[in-house]
Every structure is written in C-alpha cells, then in structure tokens.
C-alpha cells in the first residue's frame, strides 16, 4: 500500500469513550452552574436593593416628622416603661450618647420613641432606632453647670440620627440631620 493511500484511509470512528463523555459532562455542568449562579446572584442583589430602598423610605419618613417639629419638641421619650427601653443594640450604636441625649418627650406619639418596629413598603418589618443628642458645631460640649459649647459658637445643636435595622440588611441604613434654633436675645 502506498503512503498516499494510507493517509487517505478514513479514521476509525468508534464514538466516544466513557472518559471523554465524563469530561464533556463536567465542562457542560460548569457552564450551566455558572449560568445558575448568575441568576441567583442577580436575585440576591435585587432583594437587597429592595430592602435598602424600603429602609431608606422609612428613615426619610421619620426624619420628615422631626423636620416638622418645633426645636423644643425634638426630644426622646425614655421614660414610658417597656416600649421605650434602650436595649444593647440601641446603646451599642456610635450615635448613642448617654450624657448628651435629649429627653423629655412625654406624648404618646411614636415619633419620639427610641425604638419602633415599622412595616416597610415591601411588607417586611424593620426596626427604627432614633437617636437625639446635643452636639457642637465647634468647641466641646459641656452639660454642667449649663449646656454650652465653650469657646467659638456657644450654642449646641440637636443631632438626630435615624438608623433602620433588619436582619436582612448587611449594614443598617442611617440618616443624620442637625437641628438648630435661632438664639434669641433673651
């Protein structure tokens, strides 16, 4: 047989071996798993975005109620028993300050409760923590004998921090705003 004829001889076509088949299946399953992972990570991201936007709406709404209040009425209710107890999660927050806390709200209005549970627009439940503390634009806050900021601008402002927590939020949603009053001549 000549060399030409040998080269022209058709290759043996016995089909695939089991090993080849297994390799192909592994490659295919990797591709399919990657697709599934893309789907599920998209779903997780969508869910998280919904939670964050719902929590932000709740925080906005709570802050809006403080914007409507008179300066003197911006205060927390910390003496109403069980419904205004400050638990460990509340006091562990960086916005919490036992010394500078603004208290004195005695109304039954839920706005001035340190911790409330609210249902968000998505139907899920969120924990709404409100912190109100005196703070200084410049200078150091001194609470005794009187509330002052020392040198510089002597008038303290009220800093309201709204923190919305949920187990399904990786980090709580926070909003902060300061409120001031024009110091009167008296």
């Amino acid at each position: 047989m000549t060399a030409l004829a040998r080269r022209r001889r058709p290759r043996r076509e016995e089909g695939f071996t089991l090993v080849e088949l297994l390799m192909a299946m592994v490659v295919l399953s990797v591709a399919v798993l990657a697709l599934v992972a893309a789907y599920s990570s998209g779903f997780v991201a969508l869910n998280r975005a919904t939670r964050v936007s719902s929590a932000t709406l709740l925080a906005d709404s709570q802050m809006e109620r403080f914007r409507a209040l008179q300066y003197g009425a911006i205060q927390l209710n910390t003496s109403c028993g069980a419904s205004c107890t400050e638990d460990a999660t509340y006091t562990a927050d960086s916005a919490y300050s036992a010394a500078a806390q603004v208290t004195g709200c005695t109304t039954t209005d839920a706005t001035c409760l340190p911790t409330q549970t609210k249902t968000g627009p998505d139907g899920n439940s969120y924990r709404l923590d409100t912190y109100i503390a005196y703070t200084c634009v410049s200078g150091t806050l001194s609470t005794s004998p009187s509330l002052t900021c020392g040198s510089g601008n002597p008038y303290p402002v009220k800093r309201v921090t709204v923190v919305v927590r949920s187990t399904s939020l990786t980090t709580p949603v926070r909003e902060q705003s300061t409120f001031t009053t024009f110091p009167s001549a008296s």
Partner: protein
Amino acid sequence: MGPTARARLSRRARARSAAEGGFTLVELLVVLFILLIVVTSLASVLVSATHTEVDANKRFQAQEQARTGLDLLRRELHCASAVTQTSGSPLVAGTAYSAITASLPSTCPTNVTQAATFYVTWCTSASTLTTGDFALYRVTSTSTQPTCASPGTVKRADYLTTSTPFCLPSSATACSGVLKPPSSLPLLHVTMPVNVNGPASTVDTYNIVDDIALRNGAHT
C-alpha cells in the same frame, strides 16, 4: 480503472461501511425523545424566567414612578403657601381626599411661570392600564384651582390601588393610625399603594406611605 484499483476501492468501501455503521431508526428515535425532554424542560425554565423578568421590570418601573412622583409632591408641598381641597375649602382633618390643590408662591422652583397666583392640583383618576387601579395626575393653572378634568394633566404615578391618597391628620383625628404630633407643623399623610395587578391582588403591593410637612403652616 484497472482491476487492482477497483479491488482496492471496494476493500476501502467495505472497511468504511463496517466502521460507520450509522444509527438505526430506533436509536435515533430514542435520542430524539431524550433530547425533546431536555429541550422542553430548558425552554419552560427560560419562558418562565422571561415572564418573571417582564413582571419584575413592570413593577420596578411602577414603583420608581410613584417614588419620583412623591418626591415632586414633597418638594411642592414644602414650598406651598396653602394646601386645600380643589374647591379652595380647607382640608378637613382625618378625611381622605382624591385631590388636593397647593398654592405655590412665585419663588417656588416648580412655579415655572413665576406668577403670583399658581395652583397645582394633584388628583387621581381611573387608570387606563389596569382595571380597578388609579393613576395620579398633576395639573397646574394660573387662574383658578384646576381639577383632573382640566386640560394639561400629566400622569405622575400609576397602578395605585387607592383613589384617595391624601389625608390631613390632626392631634385628635388620625389618618390610618397616624396622628399629628404636638408642637408640629401640619403633616399631609400620603398613601400610595402600588400594585400592577390591580387592587384585587393582595400580595406584592408596594405600599409607599409618607407624611409631608407643610412648612409654611403653623406649629400647633
């Protein structure tokens, strides 16, 4: 072609036909059947994923439109010198309204005419997209308080399941359980439940609720 060449050809043909036996009809049918099952299940997954995507997109757009509409409403009410019924009468505490009119002074950014008299009416009217739902419209006028029937209405939200989104709470009369706190500006309670499948569908309603401070009101 010589006899040697013909013999070589037929030998080659025999060898090939032995190696390439091909599939029998039964084998082919079995393979096709298996393939059919696989492709059908994949296609059904793909179709349902596409439906879900379309539905999620529709819901997202409806919610986004409602949020954007609420933002504009909030900016206008913050700047408004008065918020009344479309008749001009004051809002009655605790009553839910389908329409309100805000009077915007000439300095308000959304008073595009800068006219001294500028009314903006926000009103609901039956949705043209889903039966039972309502759409929220905005209409302006420099002469009298406009209504949803006035020309020039612009849709700002759709798929709302309530026709009465506006309510003014007082310290004594609540709006959906919300009271106005003491020493507070008037608050307008706005409820915008968004559901693209109509009010009959109780699941998946995105319930936007906000209290908008009327900043030019009096602390009471």
